[in-house]
């Protein structure tokens, strides 16, 4: 299970051009972490619930 906290994932490879020593790399992770931490609208849970209730047979064809 992935931890979607705000902490950027640790990059162990020091030679990684987008690693923690790279300003671009850091900003990229910050940008993304902000997006990931946004609240998820209810519509998606509702959608999955709906899909679950749809009989699988109707999707044949």
């Amino acid at each position, binding site marked *: 299970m992935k931890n979607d906290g705000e902490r950027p994932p640790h990059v162990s490879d020091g030679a990684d051009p987008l690693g923690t020593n790279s300003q671009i790399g850091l900003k990229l992770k910050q940008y993304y972490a902000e997006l990931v931490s946004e609240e998820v609208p209810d519509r*998606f849970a509702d959608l999955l619930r709906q899909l679950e209730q749809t009989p699988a047979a109707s*999707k044949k064809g």
Partner: protein
Amino acid sequence: MAVSQGFKTDLLAAIPSLRAFAMSLAQNSDKADDLVQETLVKAWDKHESFQPGTNLKAWLFTILRNEFYSQMRKRGREVQDSDGAMTGRLAVHPAQQGQLDLEDFRTALEKLPEDQREAIILIGASGFSYEEAAEICQCAVGTIKSRVSRARSRLQEILQISGESEYGPDSIASQVMGSNAA
């Protein structure tokens, strides 16, 4: 065949990442959420083609990405100005003492062509390996590498970051400027 409860739980858990990736691609939250919705429906319909034990997130990202490009084609593609004109108008200022504003960064990211943007996001932010990213983008590993590298140079250029040694003495600069050359 019924979709397992575990699959549903995993889909739910993947939504934040899917939204982040969709936002990175679409640059618009309505479009991004539509993409995520479409991805979930497709994933649900195709759940039998997912092999348990393999990377669900990569599988979902692939679906989302395909959906994004197919919608773009349908729409006749909203042209992104990634070749200079916009870059010229973009308010840039030199990164000050290692500080780089997130808003500036976001603006710069938007200027990248999609293929470069998705590559740098997958590798630098979503945590995929080059191999996984290549699979998601259906291209060669070398292609991903070169897109990431071009994206990175492009961002540095737009943001006026020179090199990658903001956090310490620049060894090249000190070599150039150093007076103690023996």
